[in-house]
C-alpha cells in the first residue's frame, strides 16, 4: 500500500493488494476535461455510450422471447408487444434508444470533425470511432429485419441488392448477405446471428479500444481555443465530469422512456414474399437520404447504371470521412475560425445534403392507391 493514500478499509485494501486499485484510481484521476465554449460537445460520446448500454440490456431481455424464424419471428414480437408484461416497454426502449444512439453518434462525429479533434496523435481514436459508426449502422440494418414485417422485408431486399450491384464480387456478396438468392428465413437467421452475436463481439472490442485511447490521450482542445488560450481551469474527469455526464444520461433515459410510452414501436404487417412493395415504403430515417438520392438518379449516367454511380458516390464520401486525419495536414498555427476552414465547407455541404434529402424523402406525396385491388 502506498503511503500517503487515505485508508479505505479492509476490503479495498484486500483488492488493492491483488489488482492494484490505487494505480487504477490514479489513472482515473489523472484525466482532465478542458473547459471552454465548445465543451458541450464532449457529452455526446458519453451519451452514445449510455444508449449502447441500454441496447445491451433491452436486447438481452428481448432474446428471452424472440424466435428467429420466418414462421415465428413476427408472432413472437406480437407476443412480446401484447402478452408479455412490459414487453411493449422493453421493445419500444430498444427501438428508440437505437434511433437516438445513431442520432447522438452522428452529432458526436460531426462535432469531432468541426473541432478537429481527429488531429495527431488521435488518428486511431478517429478510426475506431468510424468503425463504431459502421458497426452501429450494421446493427440498425440487421435489427430492422428481425420483426419480419413488410417494411423490413423490402428494406432488406433493397439494402442487400445494393451490395449486389458492386461489380465482380457483388453477386457472391449478395448471396452471402442473404443466405441465398432471395430474402428468406435464411436471411433472418443470418441477420439474427450478426445482430445478437457477431456485431456485439466486434463492438465491445472496438469500443474498449476507443475508450482506452480517449482515456490515454485525454480530450482534445480545439486548435482555435488553444491558440487564444481561451480555456478555463480544466475539470477533473473523476468525479466532476462523470457526474455531469450522468445528468446527460438521465436526460437521455427520460427522452427514450417518454418516446416509448407515447410512441410505442410499431410492428405493421407480416412480411409476404409474394406481395407488392406497399406505396409510401420508407427506410429508417438514417438511411433516408441515401434512399431518396437513389430515387432521383436516372437509370443511366454516362452509360453506367445510376445506382452504381450513387453507391460509389456514398462510398467515396465515407472514405473521405474515414481518412480525414490523413487528409487534413494543416499544422495548428494555420488554423482559421472553426466555422470557416476549407474542410468545414465540405462538412456543411454533407450535412446540408443529408438534411435536404431527408426532408424531400418525408415531404414526398405518396400516390393514393386505395383503389388498387389487393393482390
Amino acid at each position, binding site marked *: 500500500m502506498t503511503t500517503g493514500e487515505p485508508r479505505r478499509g479492509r476490503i479495498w485494501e484486500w483488492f488493492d493488494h491483488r489488482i492494484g486499485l490505487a494505480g487504477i484510481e490514479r489513472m482515473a484521476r489523472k484525466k482532465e476535461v478542458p473547459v471552454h465554449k465548445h465543451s458541450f460537445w464532449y457529452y455526446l460520446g458519453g451519451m452514445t455510450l449510455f444508449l449502447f448500454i441500454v441496447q445491451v440490456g433491452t436486447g438481452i431481455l428481448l432474446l428471452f422471447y424472440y424466435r428467429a424464424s420466418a414462421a415465428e419471428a413476427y408472432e413472437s414480437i406480437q407476443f412480446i408487444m401484447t402478452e408479455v408484461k412490459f414487453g411493449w416497454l422493453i421493445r419500444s426502449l430498444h427501438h428508440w434508444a437505437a434511433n437516438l444512439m445513431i442520432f447522438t453518434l452522428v452529432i458526436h462525429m460531426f462535432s469531432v470533425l468541426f473541432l478537429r479533434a481527429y488531429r495527431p496523435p488521435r488518428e486511431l481514436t478517429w478510426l475506431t470511432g468510424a468503425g463504431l459508426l459502421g458497426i452501429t449502422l450494421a446493427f440498425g440494418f440487421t435489427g430492422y429485419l428481425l420483426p419480419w414485417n413488410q417494411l423490413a422485408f423490402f428494406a432488406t*431486399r433493397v439494402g442487400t441488392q445494393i451490395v*449486389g450491384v458492386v461489380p465482380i464480387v457483388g453477386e*457472391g456478396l449478395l448471396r452471402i448477405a442473404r443466405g441465398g438468392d432471395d430474402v428468406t428465413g435464411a436471411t433472418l437467421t443470418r441477420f439474427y446471428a450478426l445482430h445478437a452475436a457477431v456485431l456485439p463481439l466486434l463492438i465491445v472490442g472496438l469500443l474498449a479500444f476507443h475508450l482506452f485511447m480517449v482515456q490515454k490521450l485525454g480530450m482534445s482542445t480545439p486548435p482555435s481555443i488553444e491558440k487564444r488560450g481561451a480555456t478555463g481551469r480544466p475539470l477533473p474527469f473523476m468525479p466532476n465530469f462523470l457526474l455531469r455526464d450522468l445528468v446527460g444520461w438521465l436526460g437521455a433515459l427520460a427522452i427514450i422512456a417518454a418516446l416509448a410510452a407515447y410512441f410505442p414501436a410499431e410492428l405493421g404487417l407480416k412480411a409476404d414474399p409474394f406481395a*407488392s412493395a406497399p406505396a409510401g415504403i420508407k427506410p429508417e430515417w438514417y438511411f433516408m437520404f441515401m434512399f431518396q438520392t437513389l430515387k432521383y438518379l436516372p*437509370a443511366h449516367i454516362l452509360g453506367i*447504371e445510376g445506382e452504381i454511380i450513387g453507391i460509389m458516390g456514398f462510398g467515396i464520401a465515407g472514405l473521405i470521412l474515414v481518412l480525414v486525419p490523413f487528409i487534413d495536414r494543416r499544422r495548428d498555427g494555420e488554423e482559421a475560425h472553426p466555422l470557416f476552414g476549407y474542410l468545414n465547407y465540405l462538412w456543411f455541404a454533407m450535412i446540408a445534403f443529408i438534411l435536404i434529402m431527408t426532408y424531400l424523402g418525408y415531404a414526398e406525396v405518396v400516390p393514393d*392507391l386505395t383503389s*388498387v*385491388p389487393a*393482390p
Partner: protein
Amino acid sequence: MSEDWRETVVVRRRFLNWMLGTGAGALSASVLYPIARFIVPPEVEESDESQVTLPLAPRDIPRNSGQIFRFGSKPGVIIRTPQGELKAFDGMCTHLDCIVQYRDDISHIWCACHNGHYDLNGSNIQGPPPRPLQEYTVIEVGDKIVVSKDT
C-alpha cells in the same frame, strides 16, 4: 570452426522459423477455410420450371388490374390491360429487387420503393430502373391461365 558453428545455428533457426510459419499458416487455413465455406450458403437447385398454371381463372383479373403470382420461388406480375389483353412479367423491379405492382390510375407497372415506372410492355419508362421487365408468355386454356418463360 566457430564460423561453421554460427552458420549451422543460423540455418537451423531459419529452418525452424520456416517450419513454424508454415505450420501456423496451415493451421489458420484449416480453421478459416471451413468457416468461410460455412458462411457461403449452399447452392439450391434453381427451379427449372419454365411454366406455371396460376391458381386464378381469367375472370379473376378484371380489366386495368394486376396481381402478383408465384413463378417457382420468384414473384411474377400478371396484368389485364385496359384493352383487355392478359400479360405477365417478372415481378422483381430491375432497379433494386422490390416487387412491383399494377397502378390502375396511370396504367403503369410501378415500383413503390424508388418510384420506377414500366409501361404495359414492361419497358422502363421513368425513374431509376435500368432495364425492362422480362415478359412471359400467357396462354388461356379454358378456365386456366398458363404462364411460361422462353428458355
